């Protein structure tokens, strides 16, 4: 089995990992670094539950190899603290079971940073890449818009 040892920059910390070259970023975050906030939901990019932020952009971590993340800045849900979008999710009841929530929040967080003036069309374009089966879309919309309005 071929392995590769390298350093990942995750949530502002340098973390040395030894991975198989085929290990996904998701698997590496969860199994090697114990960052289980990113969730496996489909392992092929359909659901968005594993979304993280790579160099400022949302990325489905099941679609990226760990080795591809070397030299990039990775932020996971564990790397966010007290952000307006997290607070808005709580206040607006924008989740039920909470499994898709980290992925949604990472996507929303990137959206707010990249497009602070996003309109309905842009919000939809970004957020339709994630699935919330409890279907808190109305509440998620309220949460995102409450933060966009403030910024």
């Amino acid at each position, binding site marked *: 089995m071929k392995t590769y040892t390298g350093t990942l920059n995750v949530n502002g910390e340098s973390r040395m990992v030894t991975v*198989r070259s*085929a290990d996904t970023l998701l698997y590496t975050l*969860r*199994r090697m670094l*114990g*960052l*289980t*906030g*990113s*969730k*496996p*939901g*489909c*392992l*092929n990019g*359909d*659901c968005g*539950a594993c979304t993280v932020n790579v160099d400022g952009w949302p990325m489905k971590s099941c679609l990226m190899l760990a080795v591809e993340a070397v030299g990039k800045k990775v932020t*996971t*849900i*564990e790397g*966010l*603290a007290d952000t307006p979008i*997290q607070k808005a*999710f*709580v*206040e607006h*009841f924008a*989740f*039920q*079971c*909470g*499994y*898709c*929530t*980290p992925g949604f*929040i990472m996507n929303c967080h990137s959206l707010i940073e990249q497009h602070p003036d996003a309109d309905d069309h842009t919000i*939809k374009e970004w*957020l*339709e890449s*994630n*699935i*919330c*089966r*409890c*279907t*808190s*879309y*109305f*509440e*998620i*919309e309220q949460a995102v818009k409450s933060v966009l309005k403030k910024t």
Partner: protein
Amino acid sequence: MEVIGKSVIRKEAVDKVTGRANFTHDFHTLPMLSGKMVISPYGHAKIVSIDTMEAWQVPGVRTILAGDRFPLTGEAIRDRPPLAVDKVRYHGEPVALVVADTPVQAKKAADLIKVKYELLQVVNSPTQAFQKGAPLVHERLGEYKKEEDSLPVPGTNIATHIKIRKGNMEKGWADSVAVVEASLSFAPSDHVAMETRCATAEIMPDGNIIIMTSSQAPFMVKRLLSDYFGIDLGKIIVHTPLVGGAYGGKAPVQLEVLAYLASKAVGGKPVKIFNTREEDIITSPCHIGLDATVKLGVNRDGKIQAAEIRYLWDGGAYSDKAIDVTRSGAVDCTGPYNIENVSCDSYCMYTNHPYASPFRGFSHAELSFAIERTMDLLAQKINMDPLVLRYINAIMPGNTTPTRVLLNKSNVGNLRKCIEKVRELIHWDEGSVKEVSDRLIRVKGVSCSWKTSTIDIDAPSGVILTFNRDGTINLMSGVVEIGTGTKTILAQILAERLKMDVDNIHVKMEVDTQTTPEHWKTVASRGTFMAGRAVLKAAEDVLDQLKEVASCVLRAPKEDLEVAGSRVFLRDDPSIGLHFKDIGHGYKYPNGNSIGGQIIGRGSYILRHLTHLNPETGAGKPGPEWTVAAYGVEIEFDRRDYTYRLVKACTVVDIGKVMNEKAALGQVMGAMSMGLAFAGRETFYFDELGRVLNPQLRTYRPLRYGENPEYLVGFVETPQLDGPYGARGVGEHGLMGMPGALGNALSIAAGVSLNNLPLIPELIWKAKEAAK
């Protein structure tokens, strides 16, 4: 009320927005072996041979289970081998299980296992299964161990047959001036919880079996494992952390059995089985399909006189929970209408499809589609406003249900009020059809539903309260937090009863069957009702103990004491009193003498007066109360290409009492979306070999952000006198009427009766073509 009804923030909210909320798959110990299933690629086939030689060569492989005859499993009928032997009965059925050090090794080995099959004739629908001479899914149906009220018919594909016979059908038809009959059908589909199912098992040297599972029924896991394998109940300890969506799909017990067998085969080491999305869709139990025929007769005044109904449920390859779904569909078979003469045959059919589990609504969304479409056909036939037809026939106190339960002002909600409110919210009186352009029209459809919860008649729920030294209280209940927020509502109920700040109540989210009191299963919208009653009883227990100690210290009789704001005090002089922190762990006098001890409150509840059903007539009391609801859906339909857009969806449910407003709204809106997706797009596409062609989220597509309609939600509050603060269940009801309302709107829009799901443009086109 101070706390009830308020949108109290969920107790687990912060964990869930910071990635710290842990689900079963997030717990990882070392060592932790990985189990990987080999699944059947066919719907029905004889297993000729299984060759594991090459698989054993993969480094890291610790064991391979294949071809062993383990005890048969299943709930109502023991018909399911944990791993298939002799033959496979559905696409996705586990045939072998590899256990290896890592998931990659396990997968590699599983891919190298060669199974030789010989194809058998496939039973591809419940109607086909019902035909004489149909291939048998279970040749030895008569030999299986079963529950008393499972009624299989050996030599057929009938796993159970529930009969409802009420009134006099001949009279009913004679009194009718118009009769409609319709056949309706849809294939199985899936729950698609975002967290796929996961279970781990470890066997300790002392024989204790530690299971962790994403389940709605950890206590059932314990009971069934004990039953299947003859293990002492106390030796099985099941942990269930937060569950990432369930919707009924996590009520059955499946992966837990495989994880246990796997651990046993490797000397008790911990083994984890984590479903891929594809396995979660086809291997684990799915959402039931149905073929229905409904015949309704109506008199001159629009009052329904007779209902003759046949439900053929697609139970799939194994009966498991489908038998209960079949019974549940029978007891509420007519929908929420007062009908004196009812004849219903509800059959659970074996087919070569993935086997069914409960699905949010437990047969009621499914039967509602059949009934509500037929109601619209009836309205059309007698030229009556469909909402008026429903209003006239709405079930009310004084009526009886199909199983002859006499309804009263407490055990049934106010359907007429719900209908009136829907009428306003969707502006029904403005007309149900509005032209937008030469292509587009906006059309509204309506429906109603009801539901009682046909859960086990001796289903219990227990709660334990313990005091911390600072006077705060820990609340422990066997309810699993599957996303419904029930545990927060339990804290609200306790806070309301003890008149204390809800922030001073700590809720244990995880269930551990060794220390958490049992809550039968977190299903059937029964968490708030049953566990809520247990909380109230535990609160009484705590109040009594607090007053006992305080009475001694304050030298006042218990009757003179009040409790509020985390204090026990004299009613006539609240300044004289004691804070919980001074008595929750006993009271210490200045000289050091102490009395009392930690206050531990206990409460339990069991549903009362439920009975078995009479096997010939169905008579009996299946559940505690009937929640009713009315619905409307508005769509924008393109007459040229038969596509449509969901504009508005409305639900008005008689919830008894709104416990947590935002949580209740979320439940109803989420359920509506799920119902619209089930009705509008979700289904398994089977080929002639019984294979599911779309077991992925790109081919099986739940609603995504922006595809949801505008939601209109209304609540009616007719208290259920038994319920905590009058509350009724609400988790399922938003879903139940959506298929009927959408089907009705689209049938009006397309000008053709649409009797199948999902309602995709292609289906509408086919129905239009067939009608030409």
